[in-house]
């Protein structure tokens, strides 16, 4: 969601701090996980919007290890497979980062967190129909991005 490990750690901590502080408002009408997820997603989206206005350089990327620096014992096929997988993940991540927050949140909650539409709707505070359309739209956009098509992410 936030594309940065340190920020993710901060957001995770903030999520639970907020959950603790606001736990009195949790009335049990939704699942507890859903409630916490909602806090997390809102924080992540808020964080991204804030971060979008700032230029940040992740030290982690600077210190990122060079490919092939480990795993020397693995066979060439294995190295090749992992390289491909890593490349795919990078492309997926890059594509996810290009999505609007609303699309990314929906598709992440569905395809990565494996939540159902109703839970996602509750987390995002939108109707189920909206969730459905956002997920579908996000997948189409991702497909286009991954296939190298030129994508207008602003299109509805």
């Amino acid at each position, binding site marked *: *969601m*936030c*594309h*940065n*490990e*340190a*920020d*993710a*750690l*901060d957001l*995770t*901590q903030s*999520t*639970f*701090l907020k959950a*603790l502080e606001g*736990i*009195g408002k*949790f009335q049990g009408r939704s699942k507890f*996980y859903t409630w*916490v*997820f909602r806090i*997390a997603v809102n924080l*992540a989206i808020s964080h991204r919007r804030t971060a979008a206005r700032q230029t*940040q350089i992740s030290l*982690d*990327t600077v210190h*990122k*290890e*060079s490919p*092939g*620096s*480990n*795993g020397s014992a*693995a066979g060439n096929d294995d190295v090749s497979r*992992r390289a491909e*997988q*890593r490349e*795919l*993940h*990078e492309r*997926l*991540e890059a594509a*996810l980062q290009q999505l609007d927050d609303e699309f990314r949140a929906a598709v*992440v909650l*569905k*395809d*990565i*967190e*494996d939540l*159902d*539409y109703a839970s996602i709707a509750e987390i995002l505070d939108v109707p189920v129909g909206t969730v*459905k359309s956002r*997920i*579908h739209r996000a*997948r*189409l956009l*991702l*497909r286009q991005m*991954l296939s190298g098509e030129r994508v207008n992410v602003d299109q509805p």
Partner: protein
Amino acid sequence: MLTNREREQLEADLSAYLDGELDERRTAEIELALESSEQARQTLETLRLVSDRLGTLPRHRAPDQLTSAMASHAERRLLLGDDTTVRRSRIIRLVSQISAAAAVIAACAFVGWQVLQGPDTGQQPPMERSAPRALKNAPAKPMAIALAKDKKKGEMHESRRGRGEDAYYGGQPEVVDEIEAHSQERIPQSRVVELAELTDAARAGEASVARGGAAFARESVPETREVHIWITPRDEAEYVRMAAVLASWSAPAPGRRLDEEKSEFAFTPADQRELEGKLGAPLRRSKAMDTLGSKKRSPSVAHVYQISAAELPTRIHQLSRNIDAPNQIRVQMNFDPTAEMPAGDMDIPGDQSTAAGTRPARPAAPSGYVGPDRKVVANKSHWLFPGGRQRAKGDEDSAAAEQPRKRVTRAGDRGRNDQAGVGVRGQPSAARDADDAVVAPGPRREAASAPVRSSVRPAGGAKSHTEAPDGKPSTVPAAQAPAPDSTEETLDIEGQPKERLRGFVRTTTAPATTDRLFDRLFLLRRSGGARGATAAATMPATQPAADRLTFRVTILPPSAAPTTPAASQPADGPGTDTE
């Protein structure tokens, strides 16, 4: 043949079909359409591919420290009593749920991060992969990030430190990384609190108590979960601000010395509001803050808390553990020794309802606090109701009700003098002035540079001896002439029936209290194991359970006498609980 509209509708439902979110009728329709449309099948396949690939993105567990940090946070909230709406048991129960959910949420937050890391070893499936290297060593990561962000603004800079500093702290676990940060500009209060919270969280993992000097976070080996944070104030005002935070039980105390020549204290009302906002409801700022911060400018700062009697020993224990500048801290407690008084029946000075007879007047039974000189300085400045309700600001008689408070507050302005004449805070001004005159035969700064031992004669003793730094005892009336309109009076602690003095007072009757009051071990003994149950047991049975003590913590500027960091450090090492 599908119409355009049907095709659009079909495509829109393909993802839902793929996810099994359609009802049976619509599912059947989609399946029928898929049989007849090659394009729909291709679209479905690509959607499935995208979905599957997204599912291969690695997930990560939340760091183990998160659980302990959350538990610490919850514990602090419970101890501070700032959650009046939530039942404690409910918090405790839900904290465990939160902790259990940490992994799931963190997985969401960490999505995709792994792709930025080094090559996957391929030894573990993604879902079972442990936290990445950076996370394993990341108890201080938020600190590091904060510093990194500040660095971009030119406010902070980081530098790596070697392990040579370990000797400074003695017996520290192996430190694998350290980050030092020097404050180039004023540290925002929010950051101070942030650091405080971080430290507090770290303490949950048996972290050492940080202490003054530089400001740096230290990443230790994961097993120790140890984070050290030193905060170097840019100036003395910053020191005091942080000291105020320390008084909130959230942070360690910097042992940095205050230059006696500097008495700057710019704790503005805005700072106060921010601090209160950060620290939450339990902080009940007295008028002292206003006076100290905005008008008089004093190097001391005071906080007044309302806490339960049962919590007090724990607080004292925490204070003794967390602050290594004991001569900078003064703790005073107001309590109501009239156990028979029902809640809500407190005599409020100037309270019209009392005067009108709507509330039965009670005898002027003293409440008081204990000064290090074994005095019980009783005062009737009952600006708190027994039930803990603070007087409404809008009361017409608030000025009269707060008068004693202001008197006590102004005593705080004399932090330096108070430091010399330990225990004089809160005394009637006349007596205090007399003490000051005696305490400071020379320049006041000189008098302040060394603790002055005061003693009070045993029961019935009308004199108190105050020993100046030069060793010449001086005699002043112990309970000299409270102002006629004053609601304060000075009591001789040993002249009071013990049943009136109760728990904490009784413990301070030990000899050499001046020396031992803030001694760590003494405090530990005094707190009876620092457990609320013990304190509760010492409270009279007739004391209303809901009664609140007013617990005032005053942090004074350091004395001029230099104290080496090693000397200020407890012998058993930082942060270790000697219980």
